[in-house]
């Protein structure tokens, strides 16, 4: 992203955010698997697959845009 400055790309920070949030949401989804919260469509276990999606995207961003890659 930066030519004049060697700044860590913003995409790396997006990746960090996604990895942490993905992990937390995925784990909390697994923890409540047998007793889901009283929300509508809770039987779809959205936290598990949404958390997993965030975790995968975050890992990809962190890998592709890690500091010092270029």
């Amino acid at each position, binding site marked *: *992203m930066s030519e004049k*400055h060697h700044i860590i790309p*913003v995409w790396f920070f997006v990746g960090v*955010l996604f990895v942490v*949030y993905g992990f937390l*949401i995925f784990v909390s989804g697994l923890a*409540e698997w047998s007793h889901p919260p009283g929300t*509508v469509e809770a039987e779809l276990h*959205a936290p598990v697959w*949404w958390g997993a999606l965030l975790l995968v995207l975050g890992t990809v961003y962190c890998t592709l845009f890690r500091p010092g890659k270029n």
Partner: protein
Amino acid sequence: MMPASALLATDRLVHLSGVDLVIVVFYFALVLSIGFYLKRFAKTGEDFFLAGREMTAWVAGLAFVSANLGSLELLGWAGNAYQYGIMASHWYWIGAIPAMVFLGIVMMPFYYISKTHSVPGYLQLRYGPEASALSAVTFAVMTILMSGVNMYAMAVVMEVVLGWNIHFSLITSSLTVGLYVAAGGLFSAIFNEVLQFFLIWFGALLIPILGLIETGGWSGMVARIHQNFPGQDFTHLWAPMHSFSSNPMGIHWTGIVFGLGAVQAMGYWTTDFLVVQRVLSAKDVRSAKMAPIIGSFFKMAVPLIVIVPGLLGRAVLPMHLVPASEAVAGQFKYDDVLPLMLARYCGPGLLGLGITALVAGFMAGMAGNVSAFATVWTYDLYRPFLRKDAPDQHYVSMGRWCTIIGLIVSIGTAYLVMRFASMMDYVQALFGFFIAPLFGTVLLGMLWKRVTRAAGFWGLLAGVVSSVSMFTLMKLDQRWVSVFALSPYAKGLAQAMYQALWSCVTCVVVTVIVTLVTKPRPDEELRGLVYSITDVPQEQHTSLLQRPAFWGAVALAIFVVLQIIFW
């Protein structure tokens, strides 16, 4: 120190679990860390105020669209979607897409080539100090007032939704924003806006997904709305606008096309420095042209996470929401629809993500306001009128102090609004007074070299005065609504559209008349500022897929298809 129990009230829309709180706290820690990391790069004026002019088209484009994707926008437009139906999408489609493409293709080259730091800076170069000072003063005052209003609105939402103490929300959020913007300047603001963009999408996208699963898809949702509200049309964009009385907004299609699409949206997206500043941070002219066009694709998709939840509220919520002015204890307002839908579908973890998206939206909005204020104050008021030849470092220090002072004034405004609630409506209306006439002034200046210095100033002033006059008359006497908004059925949004249209027309007419009786500037003084005498870089040697004009045409084509689908 405030005891923890005092920070939480019992009456709230949602309850956060431990994992939700960890998610919220991690966001605060991350943005502060990024702010302090970026401080080392914000050394010169160009770094601090324009993020070094080295952002890629994607970063500038996402920050551009994100600067307008604040939480008040999300909550308010989801509420409008509940109230008016899919017609609210006009503010995301005809009220944004043509203007964004126009900014990228026609106007951005001039802003960029002239190397201006701001929109008032362009007016300084094109018209001289009078029009620039008028624009800069009004922008600075309005921006800081708006920041205070947003701050107060955020604290109220946090109190209603989460039960957080108003003073706690105000102090925590403004302290965080002050620290990271004063440290990294526009770098910090833009980085936070990109984070916010992703947070909002991933925090809100589950609502339409799970909502449409619950209703059995789009057709199932429409059927439920018809069943719940028989005889009312909430699912067509243009069909209900053949007359003023046939839609809940009280607007005719001419108001949407000319008032919103041709004037209000063009004014906002092409001359409001808050959004234009993000594009000025692009690393070259092509990136500056591409940034708003990239933003337009995402803007087109925003109704999925804002309008659809509002419509789903009509389909699935067991209670009927009411206007804020009519809500009594225990009743939910239109603007509560998004938090209600969030609580309906999102349990622990996902709820924290959604709430963090709202908090991030508020803080990014505040950061946008104070960073734009710091730039306009420093470069368009302080430097030309108070201290012309100071070293660059002096202006960077001034920018940092402005950020802090701007936030303190915003906090003061927030507490003032807390005491005088009606002030909020007026401050929000004030901002609209300047946008439409400013578009007329900037556009005429770019496209017609004959326009003179005096014409720029008097045209802008006449447009603003006419806008204020129309607003005041319509507030004082309902009969003026029929005159200016063309119908007694016109509601607030409809009135604002016609007010914008007539004030822009007034600005253009006065500008043309004054131009014809005053002496124009020589061509050589206007090179790089006016279309007919500027060499705008062309892209004949680049491939079709790299040309902003091609992607602009694609954005417009998709926009037309959406109008036909939801006609």
